[in-house]
């Protein structure tokens, strides 16, 4: 694979990463969110795969396969199950910040990501590192989704978005990620998803709803 093709494909995958994050902020149906999440996982796997091909590392190749299995296969499946259990009310009806405003906030967050990650890029200027701001932007957008959504499943999506962003930053820094680290992170995420899935189930049983605001009832 020539250098320019590698760069083109890498940037394309990064663009896909950013586009899917925006869509996850934009759309509110959980089913759509999960589909978009799977696409994003694929984009992430492509980034890892490209890095593996370019640097010729077996470990990175394994990471790519792992990402593909976990983020395109297992996590969406788990999420879909959680949503299926929730039933028809599977729509983020009223996020804390309205959609138009949150889209504008995302725009600002992206520019912020660019501003803060410039020093990182300048440490080792290369084709891959110059895409780091995109990873940081995905992290910030994920965090924003996490804090503005009312329903536990869509908060979960925000959490996963953040994790995708962190992985992307890891992959894009020239060193790449060690297999063990990636494995550990993957297990962590899996665990978190399972825990949250159980929590969602319990919440629905207790309150008949997955609105996180209801947790305030537990306070006193």
């Amino acid at each position, binding site marked *: 694979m020539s250098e320019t093709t590698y760069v083109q494909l890498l940037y394309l995958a990064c663009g896909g990463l950013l586009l899917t994050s925006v869509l996850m902020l934009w759309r509110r149906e959980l089913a759509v969110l999960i589909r978009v999440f799977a696409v994003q996982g694929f984009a992430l796997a492509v980034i890892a795969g490209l890095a593996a091909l370019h640097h010729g590392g077996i470990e990175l190749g394994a990471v790519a396969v792992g990402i593909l299995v976990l983020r395109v296969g297992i996590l969406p499946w788990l999420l879909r199950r959680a949503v299926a259990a929730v039933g028809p009310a599977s729509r983020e009806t009223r996020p804390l910040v*309205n959609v138009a*405003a949150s889209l504008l906030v995302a725009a600002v967050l992206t*520019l*912020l990501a*660019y*501003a803060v990650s*410039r020093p990182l890029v300048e440490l080792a200027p290369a084709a891959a590192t110059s895409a780091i701001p995109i990873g940081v932007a995905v992290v910030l957008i994920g965090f924003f989704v996490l804090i503005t959504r009312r329903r536990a499943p869509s908060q979960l999506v925000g959490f996963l978005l953040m994790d995708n962003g962190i992985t992307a930053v890891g992959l894009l820094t020239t060193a790449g990620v060690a297999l063990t680290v990636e494995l550990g992170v993957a297990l962590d995420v899996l665990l978190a998803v399972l825990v949250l899935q159980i929590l969602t189930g319990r919440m629905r049983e207790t309150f008949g709803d997955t609105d996180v605001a209801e947790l305030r009832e537990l306070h006193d």
Partner: protein
Amino acid sequence: MNPTGLALGVALVLGVFAAVLGAATRKHLRARAVGAVTALCGAAGTIAGISAMCGTRYYAAFPALLPLSGVTITVDSTSGLFLAVTGAVAFVSAVYGVGYARADANGRLPQAVFPLFVITMMLVVSAGNVGALLVCWELMALCSLVLVLTEHHRRPEVARAGRWYAVMTHLGFVAILAGLLVFTAAADDDTFPALRVAAHHLSPTTASVVFVATLLGFGSKAGVVPLHVWLPRAHPEAPSHVSALMSAAMVNLGVYGIVRVGFDLLGGGQRWWWLLTLALGGISAVYGILHAAMSTDLKRLLGYSTTENMGLVLIGLGAAGLVADDPVVAGLALAAALLHMVNHAAFKTVLFLAAGSVQRGAGSRDLDALGGLSGPMPFTTAAFGLGALAASALPPGTAFVSEWLLLQALIHARPSAGAAAVVMMPIAVAAVALTAGLAVATFVKAFGVGFLGRPRSAGAAAARESPASMTAALGIAVAVCAVLAVLPTILLSQLGSLASGLLRTGSPAAMDGIVVRLVGVSGALSPLMLAVVSVGAALGLVAVVRLVLTRQARRAARLWDCGAGPLSARMEYTATSFAEPLQRVFDDVVQPETDVDVTHARESAYLVEAIEFRNRVLDRIERWLYTPLLRAVSVWAAAARRLATGSVHRYLGYGFYTLCGLLILLAVTR
């Protein structure tokens, strides 16, 4: 004395003469005499300005004229630009005033002060030292205040507007005073060359204090958010020819101050200053046009639009300072800002004067009560339509060229200009673009609702066209607008060399007569070709349709009324209803107050007898920033009343104690 000085001198003498005429002539002659002589004064000022822009500088010193500092007059090319704009606006307003003031503002005081206002503005930009600048600035503020208050005995809201204006303009003056005095303290004397020398060894903190204080002071005169609150109150309440002079000429002096202090005297300075300027500009542009879009008072709408346009100018200034490392783009941004300022002066004159004609002809400036003016007031309608086209950044309009230049400058800022620049440029482009979009909606509303359709009130139905002097003035202003729209190149090369002089770099925009071609970056635009092709296409189309496709005459027919009888004006969309969707979209930003009162019939709660709907869009910044401030001030004032008991001895005592205290302080510290 060179031509510049001669013309300036003539302008000043004519101005004083006009003021004397205003105070001394009989009532029926007054408007004509003052108008004619002030117009000549404005024309002389324009000539002086153009001569200075062409390179004939003028310098004179009158050490005895003002205690301590004396008066220095320096007319360089920067002064020349502002002098020419002020003179031109004064010329048109004065001609308009012949017809307009005779009916509405023909008192001895307003007529005598009007020419004085013109010459104080000219003196502000010609002042060559801080002392003279400050004195002229204050005189200008006082003159404009008197003019704003012209109609105070007829309408109480004029007095309220005057109070806001008086307080805000003096706070601005205090800021300028503080900033310039700090600056002068570091220099040998208070002339501009001495300040330029002093700027080199000014500590960064002091320089920042000077810049921020003057930015706030001059910015308040330019109506920059959040110091804009006086502008949409005071500009509409003044007589219309004064409104035009204030909105098209006086606000420019705020820009003059920022350019003079920031670029010329301080020589650029630190990057965050310009980031601040850019941010203030962006906020002003969007906030101003948003409120203009919601306004139903025609002159208030124009006042908010002034805030918007000054915001755009500040975006240009900020961008120029921000990318000062890149001389080509910086020069382009500065030239774009200055061109936009000139364009704004041209179209805002047209719009305010046309609004004055409407107020006079139709008896109202409330858009909800206007409409149907294209029949009875054809000239005014055409002038306002062309002015609105010029203001809404559509081709072949005036503002289109300057906004195109501004966008070119923002687009060509390279990533090497630093993270701040890279992050700010897309935001600035978005702000300019949103402003442009909202400006289109605003002026479609102002023109479409105010002038087209059918009359919404008896006054509008009985409207009549203005006298010849007023339409003539409108015609001149429209002609200037049109020339600026299609041939900006005649001005742009001058502005380019002016900008490069201020930034000490090469010229940013070249010209070959009809095409604006940027130098150093790629980009070309020919407004003349655009206008000719568009008009040609439209005429060709008319010919084809009329001669080839349909040859029948038009038949008059009824409008579609759903078969329910003739339509009345009450069924028309009003300005309020026109802006309602926008108001809903920007609900979170403007937070309108809406009340609906439903009165039910006595017989049944299901029958509605009357519905009352009230909708007010208040200035949110005013409510959040100024209301608490005013409350705090009044609390303090109440506390201070205890000091004033009415005893004369006590008052004298205060003076005595303060004097003694100061002396003791001196004795201790020295």
